[in-house]
């Protein structure tokens, strides 16, 4: 996902995405989601294009990008491992599991392994509170994650 495209290509692709969603009411979030799907993050070069097309200031667009936890300003690793950090998962040993994940990967939350394989992220609730602790690897959900399951997840992500 995190292929570095030349600036002109980013601008061109952004223009196409904006064009696709411009007709919606309140199109900015759908546009940003699509841009992140496309590039793996929201490249800075997109912002002036979006601002111009939606008749917003760059500051307004930047403000929205930075407000929401989902939007990245830098590319993530090839895989994203999200661990639920909310109360239900805490009640089932989520904190300990998070420490274990950090140790296995050698990184902290919001960091990417040096080989670019895995980004570790906290998430506040996957809605899988009845099978805590839970995790999500690239959109695939896992429940009742124990040490063995976590090791398998990390191994899968490292590939």
């Amino acid at each position, binding site marked *: 996902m995190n292929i570095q495209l030349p600036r002109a290509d980013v601008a061109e692709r952004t223009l196409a995405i904006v064009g696709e969603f411009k007709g919606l009411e309140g*199109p900015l979030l759908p546009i940003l989601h699509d841009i992140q799907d496309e590039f793996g993050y929201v490249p800075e070069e997109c912002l002036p294009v979006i601002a111009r097309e939606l008749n917003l200031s760059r500051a307004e667009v930047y403000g*929205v990008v930075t407000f929401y936890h989902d939007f990245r300003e830098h590319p993530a690793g090839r895989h994203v491992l999200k661990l639920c950090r909310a109360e239900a998962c805490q009640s089932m040993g989520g904190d300990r599991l998070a420490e274990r994940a950090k140790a296995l990967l050698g990184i902290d939350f919001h960091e990417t392994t040096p080989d670019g394989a895995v980004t570790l992220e906290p998430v506040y609730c996957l809605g899988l509170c009845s099978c805590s602790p839970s995790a999500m690897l690239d959109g695939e959900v896992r429940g009742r994650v124990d040490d063995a399951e976590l090791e398998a997840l990390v191994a899968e992500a490292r590939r």
Partner: protein
Amino acid sequence: MTVKIYIPRDAAALALGAERVATAMAEEIAARGLDAVVVRNGSRGMHWLEPLVEVETAEGRIGYGPVKASDVASLLDAGLLSGGAHPLSLGKTEEIPFLKQQTRLTFARCGVIDPLSLDDYRAHGGLRGLEKAVAMQPAAIVAEVTESGLRGRGGAGFPTGIKWKTVLDAAGARKYIVCNADEGDSGTFADRMIMEGDPFVLIEGMAIAGVATGSTKGYVYTRSEYPHAIAVMTEAIEIARAAGVLGTSVLGSAHSFDMEVRTGAGAYVCGEETSLLNSLEGKRGIVRAKPPLPAHKGLFDCPTVINNVISLASVPTILDKGAAYYRDFGMGRSRGTIPIQIAGNVKHSGLYETAFGLTLGEIVDEIGGGTASGRPVKAVQVGGPLGAYFPRALFDTPFDYEAFAAKDGLIGHAGIVIFDDTADMLKQARFAMEFCAVESCGKCTPCRIGSTRGVEVADKIAAGIEPEKNRELLADLCNTMKFGSLCALGGFTPYPVMSAMTHFPEDFEPAPVREAAE
């Protein structure tokens, strides 16, 4: 006749391996040349039994669970297709006490039908509410909802009918129905289950709301953490549109109503209604000061009904069976049913829809069966990260809006999270403040600054620095946040903090004292 085998597509079931089970089942059916088909249903809500495989027999549906992919061959060997005996057999699904004792109105079809089959939906009583609604006067629909006593299931408990009436009476060429599906509270998954297991009931509820208030456009604002719900909901809307349930002529009537799904971007505060509206408009999810109410000036400054998923999904039953039918369930001013979500450290986790009025103790000990770890229950957080922690001493509290408020708590979106005796309540209180600091939209000072100061004060208490003075300071800070914040994020964060401090004072003693006491 082709035998139907049900394997859920609900995210909780998928998280426990349902996809692998479904794949293995399909392969075995093909390899053995059996006359059977796999139907991907929603979840019945008995999550400790997921993946729950069901087979339709002449006697009814027989359940097996929890099933692993490696169990599939032995299940078929044991005569799964005719409900044969197997160590994983649970007998008739409907007879499992956890399910049998429920009153399923809103979740009547969830886990029963194929969520994307409109025929299945109709065959199980779907669309009757909307059919009645399109033949009624808007004011009569609103009156029916008001008389049912339905209150907002998102947590605020505001009467749904009153909200609708305000929008109906508001002048405006364009009005909106916004469904708040930004279910961010830990311990809650009812909205997700409806969207994944019975999306048409939400579509029907929103269409009724549209007809009742003269709104022609609806939005379901949900979470990016819910990819499965987004996919099912989006597909269901397309199916409903193609079938004429949505569109310029709702069920062939003169009413027009259409809707779409919008995805949030990982901001908890967007579950607050005014913040959600800003987010839908493409802005930062900053809370708006009220008034004006969203019912007068909501989305794009137009009159807007904004209701929780469960509120809207409860409406079709009310229209179909009448206000009195719904109102006759419940207690006090809490009418109808509530889907209680039992989560965390609990043996029988899942969703339990019942009339208001069960005590917290009945829910935790009898229905939930105590902790999964087998250790004693220490605390139960009711209503998500902004809800109070209840000790065993308050287990006689009935599940009712007013009864919980009287005990300095709230039922919120009806999620309950159970903790065993290893929980450290000072740590939980600190987490509540930390969460508020991470998720604060930043508009008001008590929330933005208070939460950060709260974390620091909690750390001082943990470190044994002037504990008595800092406990007083924490209480004072909570008071400021409670009364000075613009919305429930800053305003309700004091609930978990103060309840932890009030009910578990031993956890707020300085570390050396706590160690000496052990």
